[in-house]
């Protein structure tokens, strides 16, 4: 069996690299925290304004704060319905 394992290993890259990749993303996200407390209200207000002009779904809008170095980026994503 050990002899077989020896050959199998060559092709098997293992799951550790995947674990590391997932952790790096997750830990960065955890460290950023939940974002400012006004985000949910901002999301509701924006939705109301946009709905005056376009009929979008309530879940078609997402507001996120991203950190890059010492900059904070407010990311706003609205999916418009197909015309």
């Amino acid at each position, binding site marked *: 069996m050990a002899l077989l394992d020896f050959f199998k290993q060559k092709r*098997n890259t*293992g799951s*550790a690299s995947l674990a590391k990749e997932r*952790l790096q993303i997750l830990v960065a996200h*955890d460290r950023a925290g939940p974002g400012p407390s006004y985000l949910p209200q901002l999301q509701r207000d924006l939705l109301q304004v946009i709905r005056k002009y376009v009929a979008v779904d309530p879940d078609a809008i997402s507001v996120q704060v991203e950190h890059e170095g010492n900059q904070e980026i407010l990311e706003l994503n609205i999916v418009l319905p197909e015309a």
Partner: protein
Amino acid sequence: MARIIVVTSGKGGVGKTTTSAAFAMGLAERGHRTVVIDFDVGLRNLDLVMGCERRVVFDFVNVIQGEARLGQALIKDKRNPKLFILAASQTRDKDALSVEGVGKVLEELAQDFDYIVCDSPAGIEKGATLAMYFADDAIVVTNPEVSSVRDSDRMIGILSSKSRRAEQNLEPINERLLVTRYSPERVARGEMLSLEDVREILALDLLGVIPESGSVLNASNSGVPVILDQESNAGQAYSDMVDRYLGGELPHRFITPEKKGLLGRLFGG
């Protein structure tokens, strides 16, 4: 002046109590007056791992609530006269602990001891936050596994923001990483996060690496801190870790696969 060390991790079952017992015994063996405190109120286990479970009369909560004097609750280790254990209560819940109460007991202990080792419960609730609140040093115990690493990272954030040192703008807690249950063979096969991976993600100085070892279970079965089993790799790795904590510069051991002969490689083992 006593030094207060918290052994913490966030996740349960990674080896906090094993480490607390081994570390405290190691300090005592090197001549330092040491007390190890179980902060896991309601689920105490340190006494069991230390082998003094039948000698617990009064506990930490009794002392905090004024039902017993500290001298009555401290259990003297039978193997080492410099080592004392303060057990947690098994019947109360974690709300029996308070910042003031814990602070007072630690202050009293600091008169008599060189080192106070706080064995934190898992989680981030009251017992865990109080175990680390007064700490000068932290040992973050982590298994090379995704959930443990993530929880450790969370704990590191709490250590640097919610401790006495953070609140009073003092020098931050000296946090160091202890990787436990490490299997160099599995790392070599790409199945387990490597030391470098864990260090890179958590960005902490490495205090020690304890290899996966059957002797840890043997030691807890018999109520003997594994550091006393100097035949075992884990016992030796804990000794190194204690020496490193006390300022010694030792290379990390047991971090590469043990070499097998050609026959061993062909036929397993």
